[in-house]
């Protein structure tokens, strides 16, 4: 499976990753190598095999729906690049 530059750009867009145009061809080569490498999985007959999501086949544990965390808004906001009045700021989204 060889990826074209255009496909790499599409994947980068889906992942919201800015890639330098000069680096696209190298990513295309590396990603194609990796996909070619994982291609060998296709040689295995997995008909009827249940996919394994958790090594111990555990299921999601539920907890009582009660508040356990305290309000740490100020503490958490300290790591934000830009805030105002307790809110995160981003560039204008609605014109």
């Amino acid at each position, binding site marked *: 499976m060889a990826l074209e530059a255009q496909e790499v750009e599409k994947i980068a867009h889906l992942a919201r990753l800015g890639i330098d145009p000069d680096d696209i061809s190298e990513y295309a080569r590396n990603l194609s190598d990796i996909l070619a*490498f994982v291609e060998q999985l296709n040689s295995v007959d997995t008909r009827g095999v249940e996919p394994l999501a958790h090594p*111990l086949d555990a299921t999601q544990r539920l907890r009582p729906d009660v508040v356990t965390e305290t309000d740490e808004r100020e503490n958490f906001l300290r790591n934000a690049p830009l805030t105002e009045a307790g809110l995160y700021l981003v560039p204008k989204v609605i014109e």
Partner: protein
Amino acid sequence: MHHKTLVELGAGLRQGAYSSEELTRACLDRVAMLDNQLNSFITVIEAQALQTARDADARIRSGAAGPLTGIPYAHKDIFCTRGVKTSCGSRMLDNFIAPYDATVTQQLNAAGAVMIGKTNMDEFAMGSSNETSFYGPVTNPWDSETVPGGSSGGSAAAVAARLVPVSTGTDTGGSIRQPAALCGITGLKPTYGRVSRYGMIAFASSLDQAGPFARTAEDAALMLGAMAGFDPRDSTSVERAPDDYTGGLNNSLQGLKIGLPKQFFGEGLDSGVAAAVEAALDEYRKLGAVITEISLPNSQLAVPTYYVVAPAECSSNLSRFDGVRFGYRAKDPEDLEDLYKRSRGEGFGAEVKRRIMIGTYALSAGYYDAYYLKAQQVRRLIREDFMRAFEQVNVIMGPTSPSVAFRLGEKSNDPVTMYLSDIYTIAVNLAGLPGMSIPAGFAADMPVGLQLIGNYFEEARLLNAAHRYQQVTDWHTRVPQGFE
């Protein structure tokens, strides 16, 4: 003092031979004197460490000390540490001061251990050489032109160079065992779910597991005792009390059934590594173990399976880094999409971007069944191989890594070649089993690791097998030149 093990240092502290403050000061001095050669630390917290040490001294004087009280340790920079920079080896988190403690951090704090700093690592734990770190590579204490392994390279190098007696690591595909092997120390990856993942920055959530580095199995057992346990804040934590990891260390190995997977001794294994592993197995025979060949027929599929599962999970986990709530933000974004793309494009390094893109591709519409679902099916086949093997044997052994430490830059431009350096460790993560690496001699003057793989929750059995071997060999006591 720096040659003493955790067990010896703990005894010295409780007898009053020295204080934790003196011991912590000695470690900090060694870091200041020697770490410019290694680059094993990203952050050193001198004042805070000395304060923690004084608190530990008070606890020791009050008679309430446990085995880890007052013991200095280095913490992989993947664990959140309240008030202390937690970078995960990435520019993305270069400015991140964790607002809370990981459960593992809390547990080690509660045990009275003294964190002296945060160690260097591959960016977001994605790497096998520590070369993907934003903070530069770590070098191997045994040869400064070679890598320490990864991703927990800083934690392994710091223990090997006797900067600290013990440290923490995480292992998603070999990131504790492979650097332990390449640096000549003891490393343990517990059963998936044994140690809490809360506050441990997520890479591949169905594979990630934390564990200790130490010089001896006995020290690793004490560390694991403090780290293991059920945590309601980790949804995949196992509701099961930790075992006694030290009580059975001296059990006899008479009749222990050891299985050697024939797939681990074939093409691609360095002959010097093979010879050292064979010699180690002879020691086990002398200790009374019975060694048989076994087969893990799907083991050659482990690395390709991993490079679908791990990138898929990573692409999902790392979507949280958006330049909005914490972490790196690009300058002067034009709009929200530009903010996301440039913050992520500039904040992540090349290997992290590769894995996010592979994962995004594997999970995208039309490809999910062909990649992710297929890989999860093969993952079950890989686990079934182990389950069949454990019907015949108690412990599986083999090399940890196909070669000794490789040279800096040797594999960094070829991702697939780099991925194959974890060929013997990755299947263990896919199956969720516990694994260890212990020093087992040298090849071309560089350390060789012996890997021990156990059935679920059999950490105590692995530690017992490792400890008995260390009673009759001295590989784990060897010190790299320049760090004596």
